[in-house]
């Protein structure tokens, strides 16, 4: 059988620490990964608590102090409406994490389910899933998102409007979550195929490992084997992919905002701040520089962390 033995050593070896603690030790020795982890932790903290600690409200306008350069009162200056850019970047961190987490969560859910089923059962199920994956990947991402937004935004908005007029329920007045739903939904829709491919490949390799045959020889059902034997063993590479995927999702949101299909103002997102800043960058470079720098930092941090996790979880690949 095509089996990679965990160890060729036949003498008694007793690794003193668990797989995960081992991985943690290796991660800590990787400087870039530690840097990435530190930045991610700080950003996550900012996303959760930042909005309560900002010097200004992200919406409060001060028309007497518009487009001000960075100073001690406004660390990142102010924008064309006199809003504090530092506060908006901080609030944007929350948006970025919200987008990244929700999108990645949905994409992983779809990808893991389809990939695991395809890899485990093979046959026609595999062919359908692979076809879906290839189809999705062959459609240009931005095109798909623009089409979804253009075709769904207006009908949903007008439906909401009509519901509001009919019921006077203020719920239907709130359109922000519709924007979010569309942004999240369309981003997840283009983000799941890599997860499906990864998990399918993992499952294909795990399926031929002896412990799977051993589980089948115990008479366990396919469902139990899939949930308790296959999926947990495929988790390592998935964690790595998710870490990198979170960064990618943040960048993706900016790309969408730039095209005007991202998170809508006035909710601050790094993406819509960058896209606003781009229009005036010759005059007020700080409006572009501040959100772009933070986005760049976040994306680099996630990718360092992902690489570090990859090395840490593959002891054979790491030095």
């Amino acid at each position, binding site marked *: *059988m095509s*089996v990679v*033995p*965990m*160890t060729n050593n*036949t*003498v*008694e*070896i*007793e*690794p003193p620490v*668990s*797989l995960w603690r081992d991985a943690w030790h290796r991660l800590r020795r990787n400087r870039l990964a530690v840097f990435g982890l530190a930045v991610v932790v700080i950003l996550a903290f900012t996303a959760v608590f930042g909005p309560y600690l900002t010097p200004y409200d992200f919406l409060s306008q001060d028309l007497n102090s518009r487009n001000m350069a960075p100073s001690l009162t406004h660390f990142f200056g102010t924008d064309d409406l006199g809003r504090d850019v530092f506060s908006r970047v901080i609030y944007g961190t929350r948006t970025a994490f919200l987008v990244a987490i929700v999108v990645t969560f949905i994409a992983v859910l779809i990808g893991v389910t389809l990939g695991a089923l395809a890899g485990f059962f*093979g046959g026609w199920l595999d062919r359908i899933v692979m076809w879906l994956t290839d189809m999705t990947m062959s459609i240009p991402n931005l095109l798909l998102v623009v089409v979804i937004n253009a075709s769904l935004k207006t009908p949903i908005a007008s439906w909401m409007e009509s519901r509001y007029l009919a019921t006077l329920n203020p719920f239907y007045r709130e359109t922000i979550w519709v924007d979010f739903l569309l942004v999240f939904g369309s981003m997840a829709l283009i983000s799941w195929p890599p997860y499906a491919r990864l998990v399918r490949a993992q499952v294909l390799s795990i399926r*031929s*490992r*002896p*412990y799977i*045959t*051993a*589980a*089948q*020889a*115990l*008479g*366990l*059902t396919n469902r*139990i084997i899939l949930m*308790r*034997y296959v999926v*947990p*063993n495929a*988790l390592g590479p998935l964690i790595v992919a998710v870490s990198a995927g979170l960064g990618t999702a943040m960048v993706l949101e900016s790309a969408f905002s730039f095209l005007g299909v991202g998170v809508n103002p006035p909710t601050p997102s790094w993406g819509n701040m960058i896209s606003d800043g781009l229009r005036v960058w010759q005059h007020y470079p700080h409006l572009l520089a501040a959100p772009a720098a933070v986005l760049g930092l976040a994306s680099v941090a996630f990718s360092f962390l992902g690489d570090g996790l990859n090395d840490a979880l593959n002891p054979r690949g790491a030095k």
Partner: protein
Amino acid sequence: MMMASDIRPEPTPKARERLLDVKGLTIEIETRNGPATIVDGIDLHVDKGETLGIVGESGCGKSLTMLSMMRLLPNKIRVTKGEANFGGRDLQKMSNADLRKVRGGEVGFIFQDPMTSLNPVMRIGQQLAEPLIYHRGMTKAEARKRAGELLKLVGIPGAEDRLDAYPHELSGGMRQRVMIAIGLACNPQLLIADEPTTALDVTIQAQIVDLVKELRDKLGMSVVWITHDLALIAGLVDRINVLYAGTVVEDAPVDALFDNPSHPYTQGLLASIPKLTDERSTRLSSIGGTPPEPGRRPKGCPFAPRCPLAEQVCHERVPSLEGVGQAGAHRVACFVAQRKLEAA
């Protein structure tokens, strides 16, 4: 000593009852050049309470035969002919749901490699509990308690404390004991041990053999023990089947086989025992050549290309397994051996 086999009493002759009866099982593998036969119409049987040893070189199809009975073959390898009756029911035709009850519930497996046959991310207590919950309908608490007892049964020190260990926290010998415990969890009628000791060092091998012997006598089950190592199992098994290139070439009570090996391959196997014990080599140094590859089986006797006694007929016809001892208890598939014994 010639007739030692005939003196040895059959295990309680009247109570002999077939537990496992494999008839004409043929296994083929899908290759680039079409299907190739790996196991060619094999016949095997195990009686209730009997321990059968299966020996043969690496790659002769020992593992695949056992896996195929339980329909556990990997992709691209399948059974094309034959039946495998267990307790009177053909496992090859059984529904998946019924088969799952037999797997683990009535037939326990111990696999070749304790390093890779346990789920690395599941605590061993849970791996032991899984079949108990599934086959015996135990609650989690009951299963955990029984898992602790099983670990004690297979001689793991500090059994209960080990329930929460992950496989990599145990040594190879301990892991193999865990595998045995899992195989025994549901008190199976048949335990299939596929070279359960090859990955272990010599003293632990002997301990494992003694353990299985003790448990077999205590629990009254049948055992099929697969090995390269005839010497290791001499004291454990009642009967031995020698496999060559996917067929049984000799079937004999253990003493008869050692005293009077009839097939030239068995003779070579016995002659090479000392060499086998001091290195982990699986090649038979006393017999030149290698077994035929799947898809390149000779037309006549599969052993003919390597056989020192081969005659013209050996290259033309396949010898069948025929009785040479009293009551047909000792059977051999070799033209020359059959002729010799008839003449004697």
